[in-house]
């Protein structure tokens, strides 16, 4: 049962040796070829998510100006939009949430509730006048800026563009951004 000893036992002729090599090469080639289709098909299905794009940024009517407290306290609103989840399509379902507040200048500020550190949803705590992340204790001021130099979050809360239409409707350009980076990189 020794590989060297086995074929050499009968002093193979060069012709036989050549045939032997050819057989080995063809065996490996044929064996490899049998696996090409299953491996490729399996790999393609595994890699399928790479070609899927996240829903592009949405412009969503969230609420009206009357719903926002006068004194600048933030209030959380769900973002309702049509959601595609693989084969399912669901109209008007929550796809995220924003904090809205009136700024001292009289404008409206929108902040994505997802913490830029790892994506947990932050809470506004009125007694501490800021947003706090329940996961790793990131802390943000009421305007979304980092409130703590030791905060695990690499950036401020993600501010979203707001439009006030017809003098009272609040429309938000909703977008999620990749967690963990110092820059705002949209999720695709």
């Amino acid at each position, binding site marked *: 049962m020794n590989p060297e000893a086995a074929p050499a036992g009968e002093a193979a002729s060069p012709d036989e040796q050549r045939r032997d090599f050819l057989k080995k090469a063809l065996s490996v080639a044929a064996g490899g070829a049998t696996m090409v289709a299953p491996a490729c098909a*399996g790999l393609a299905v595994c890699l399928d998510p790479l070609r899927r794009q996240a829903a592009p940024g949405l412009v969503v009517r969230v609420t009206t100006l009357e719903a926002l407290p006068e004194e600048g306290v933030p209030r959380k609103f769900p973002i309702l939009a049509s959601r595609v989840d693989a084969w399912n399509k669901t109209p008007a379902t929550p796809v995220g949430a924003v904090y809205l507040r009136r700024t001292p200048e009289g404008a409206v500020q929108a902040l994505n509730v997802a913490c830029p550190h790892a994506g947990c949803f932050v809470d506004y705590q009125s007694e501490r006048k800021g947003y706090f992340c329940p996961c790793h204790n990131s802390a943000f001021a009421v305007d979304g800026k980092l409130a703590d130099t030791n905060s695990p979050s690499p950036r401020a809360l993600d501010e979203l563009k707001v439009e006030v239409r017809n003098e009272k409707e609040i429309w938000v350009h909703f977008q999620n951004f990749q967690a963990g980076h110092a820059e705002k990189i949209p999720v695709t």
Partner: protein
Amino acid sequence: MKRLLDWLDERTGYRKLTNEALYEHIPGGARWRYVWGSTLSFCFVVQVITGFALWMAYSPSSQTAWESVFYIQHQMWGGWLLRGIHHFTAQAMIILLVLHLMQVVIDGAYKAPREVNFWTGLVLLQLVLALSLTGYLLPWDQKGFWATKVATNLLGIIPFVGADLQKLVVGGSDYGHHTLTRFFALHAGVLPAMVVALIAGHIWLFRKHGITAKRPYKKKDAYFWPDQVFMDAVACLAVAAAVLLLCVRHKLMGPHGPLGADLGAPADPSEPYSAARPEWYFLFLFQFLKYFPGPLEIWGAIIIPGVVMGVMFLMPKLADRPRGHQFNLALIAVLLAGSGWLTWAAMKQDKADPAYQLAVTEADREAHRAAELAKAPDGIPLAGAVALLRSDPLTQGPKLFSKNCASCHRYDGHDGTGRQPDGPPRAPDLKGFASREWIAGLLDPARVDSNHYFGLTKFNDGKMSKWVKKNVTGYSPEQREQLRKVIAAVSAEAGLRAQRDADARDAATIKEGAALARGDIGCTECHAFQKPDEDATAPLLTGYGSREWLVRFISNPKHGDFYGSRNDRMPAFAESQILDTQSIGILADWLRGEWYVPGRDATAAAK
């Protein structure tokens, strides 16, 4: 490199292992008849690879199983190929198992001292069959659902434990989420693990006893590597090529049919499925059962197959007796011939059965339609794809018509589904109802009292029929032209999709026709048309054939707006609670040709 390998060998002893694996001694040299075991191992590896990839996209629940498989098949990269390879390799395994078993028995490789190896092989055969059975259900399409239901119902006839066993396998009293989670756990976890363990034992025992070489030896002795490996690799390549060919068979043989494996319409427990058949390799059992009526069923389903399996397990012992091997050979031959004959008989009966053929055609149509609706812009709702088919007029309309309307009405001469009801029609043919052609036929003196319209109704000699025969027969060419305009005007009330362009183009004609209907032609002497008329005695022409008109008419034809007390035999479908509102709406939509059509509706939405 050499030093690294030396180091590795010292730690693992891999060289010895590789040598033992590769330099198996084969007396009489490599032969093609020894390839079957290797092809089976190859198939199992393919099933594991493709199975893992499918697992990443499959979701076992009654609202997501069909949907996720649809998504794999139609939306994911290479998904159709992946499913196709998994599906057809499973079928190849069945054939290869039979060949392997035949070779082992013919060559006497099952005899002492190889009994245990033969038994592990028989258990592996059963495990592969169990994998096929559990896998057949997982796509949760009509075919798999109803065929598997038969199989699990058969479990119920086992004495004493049958009912409990069935409940355990099904995961409850009826098919549902837990049937899928259980079948999936069996298919992707429990059974493959058992197969791996048994293949390991099978190969170990095979190597322990060595190959049963077929005599007389034709060549000098050889080793597994490379002589036999070469033949095995070529055989595996042939299997792989056959599987790939089956995956693209429809494309090679014409443009019909899907790529890869079929996917039926989503399982619907409320929708009977007359095309239910097990996979072809279980057809012999399916056919066998037909010969065991009622109380004898347990013989066909459990006892006889059990005894046959038992005798097969005893084959190595039988071989010790005089002529035992010959008996075993005869047994295998009889079993194979019997299964082959039963399979052929099952196929022949189905082929000669027009009802079954029609059911298959319908099943194909619904499968195609389900995929069409699932690909539509609205996508699949959370309730699952079955909801799409249940509310689809094109799918449900013909069935509702056949069940509720076709005892009197016809649709293009048949019952809506293409079947021919007994006896002549006793009410109008409703294909194209309210279209210009349909109304023109009604207003044709030669046709109004034909069986296509009022022939076998009590309106055969009614006012309308008399009016048509008396007046229209003598119409001048000008009057005929006027009638044509009236027809366009009445038909436009329906707002039929098929006439949308014509109605828009002929707006002026329609306006003229409406005036003539109220004037010279005189429809409003009996009918109300576009204006309320308390004295009207005939069915309302305002909105004639529109969805609202049809829904109201089907709901209650005895209403004063329609036939009132003169109504013939038509039931008030809503008032008598024969049909619910949704079904009536579906019927109306179907009669009006209102259903989703890919392409057409996509462009309409874009406009």
